[in-house]
């Protein structure tokens, strides 16, 4: 994943998806997937391409949790905080994660390796508690399994 915004690559993505306002959410999703976040340059560029105001684009970016404006760490670790996982100890798992990683929720480690975030339901509720690392879901994660997953190579 590139960490900096690449206008030419972004243009290709926008063309593929469709440079029309109705595709704005889909375009922003693609920008996050490809450039890790949506920075000011991206907002200006997308607004320009879709003939929207920057405020229009910002309004959408700031609405959706996925549309991050700061790059995530190499590994984006999301721990489910919803009811089913609560019933199986997600609070304790979260506390363990914060302590073992020395990271609070919503923060990225100084070396840019790991970002820790809450998520509300991964749809893996018969195998709670669940976490997601980048795009992969893991079920029945206790403290030991969490440590194994974190220390495993990418």
């Amino acid at each position, binding site marked *: 994943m590139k960490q900096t915004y690449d206008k030419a690559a972004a243009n290709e993505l926008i063309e593929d998806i469709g440079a029309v306002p109705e595709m704005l959410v889909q375009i922003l999703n693609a920008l996050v997937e490809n450039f890790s976040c949506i920075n000011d340059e991206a907002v200006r560029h997308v607004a320009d391409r879709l003939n929207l105001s920057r405020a229009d684009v910002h309004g959408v970016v700031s609405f959706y949790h996925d549309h991050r404006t700061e790059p995530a760490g190499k590994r984006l670790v999301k721990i489910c905080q919803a*009811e*089913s996982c609560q019933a199986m100890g997600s609070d304790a798992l979260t506390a363990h994660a914060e302590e073992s990683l020395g990271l609070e929720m919503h923060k990225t480690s100084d070396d840019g390796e790991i970002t820790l975030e809450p998520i509300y339901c991964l749809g893996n509720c018969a195998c709670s508690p669940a976490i997601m690392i980048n795009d992969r879901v893991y079920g029945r994660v206790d403290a030991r399994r969490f440590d194994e997953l974190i220390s495993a190579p990418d």
Partner: protein
Amino acid sequence: MGDPIRVFVPRETSAVSLGADEVAERIQDHGADVEIVRNGSWGMCWLEPLVEVEIDGERLAYGPVTVDDVTDLLKAGFLQGGDHALKLGSVADIPYLKNQDRWTFRRCGLTDPVSIDDYRANGGFDGFLAATKLGTAGIIDEVKKSGLRGRGGAGFPTGIKWQTVVDAPADQKYIACNADEGDSGTFSDRMLMEGDPFCLIEGMMIAGLAVGADRGYVYLRSEYPLTREVLGEALNAAKAAGWLGKDIQDSGFNFEIDLHIGAGSYVCGEETAMLESLEGKAGVIRYKPPLPAIEGLFGKPTVVNNVITLASVPDILIEGADKYESYGVGRSKGTLAFQLAGNIKYGGLVEKAFGLTLRELIEGFGGGTASGRKLRAVQVGGPLGAYFPEDLLDTPLDYEAFIELGGMVGHGGVVVFDDSVDMAAQARFAMEFCAIESCGKCTPCRIGAVRGTEVIDRIVANENRDGNLELLGELCDTMVDGSLCAMGGMTPFPVRSAVKYFPEDFNRPPGAKN
């Protein structure tokens, strides 16, 4: 060398979350005489990864299989049906599955989800072909007769919604499938889309045919990356085989489906917020009326249905509305794919006719709590659903019975908690979640949820407890009566039920734990 041995290993989020990919890889490494089929899940999550071996046309199951078990299984000759501690026999004989009323999920687990041939061989697209002969009025009559109601949670009669779209004159109409399954404790949409995606596609085609729409959208949540992959493959396969596109199978009917991905917003599961998001905007809800059936996507008449609603339709046209209607009780007809989640021994998906009790579901199918401790509370219908105590478990699962109790069946998610749960904390979480996810359009939801967490904090801290409990009650009334949609309007359901059925949790010395 004979035909390769077919081995089924689910490509489904729960199974994969427990190592199914690695298991499939390890079995494949065994040699070229094995063909791995990545099927959907049968829904018995406690047995995942559940591996099946096909021997003389019969499938024998083993599970739960970890990657470390594979060598041992091979040694025991499991590819020839050898005995092993993990051997389960035929899945059809497992009581959990045997005692279900599989309708919408009848192919899930059985077939290769992205194989058109497999789908056709198991009755797939027969519903669509029947629909081309029935015509608009015929299709809608059948759907009305079946008693099918919206499975997303609201339970609105599907046939009447479709009729409304038919009756709205317009040059363009749309089918919008709500696959933004955000409720905690629910995963039936995901399992259907990962296990039998063509069934959803077929349901959307039939809806399109019925109301005269040639374009459909699936709005899928971003938290389901594997679903996106499987559904994307299925859409491409359907297009390539002429089941989507122009003049489908020489029927003269054109239909296309676009897949849109959400961006992590819970409220986008509300139908009008979803439409806004499909239009590329922030998921801020719309006032109703106008109903989406009259002015929906891009202002055009739109059928907005949940995944399970649409996927239930093909078999209604094949098996007949009467048969579907013969399942269920009262005004809750047909089957619902219940989902057993949280602190439950045998978690998974149970498709059953309406009318069984919560106890039958949780104790009969689910085997009680996973922790082995006493069950204390059950939340039914997602984060906006009520919490029920143990003594209400004999309530039959039907829409009306749950509304009477101040709750809802919703999308059929059942989350079990043992006696370690702190219900004041659960009530606080309901308000906190609403504050995080509110779209901000109406004040009762946007501000009420924030005030709700503060009031509950004061109650727990024993600051003017009686006065604040009264205030919480009034706040809940305001949110129920004054919110524009279910987000603010139903957040009080879990809060009120927690206060009503578990008052002791709001009445402890400050700092005391349950």
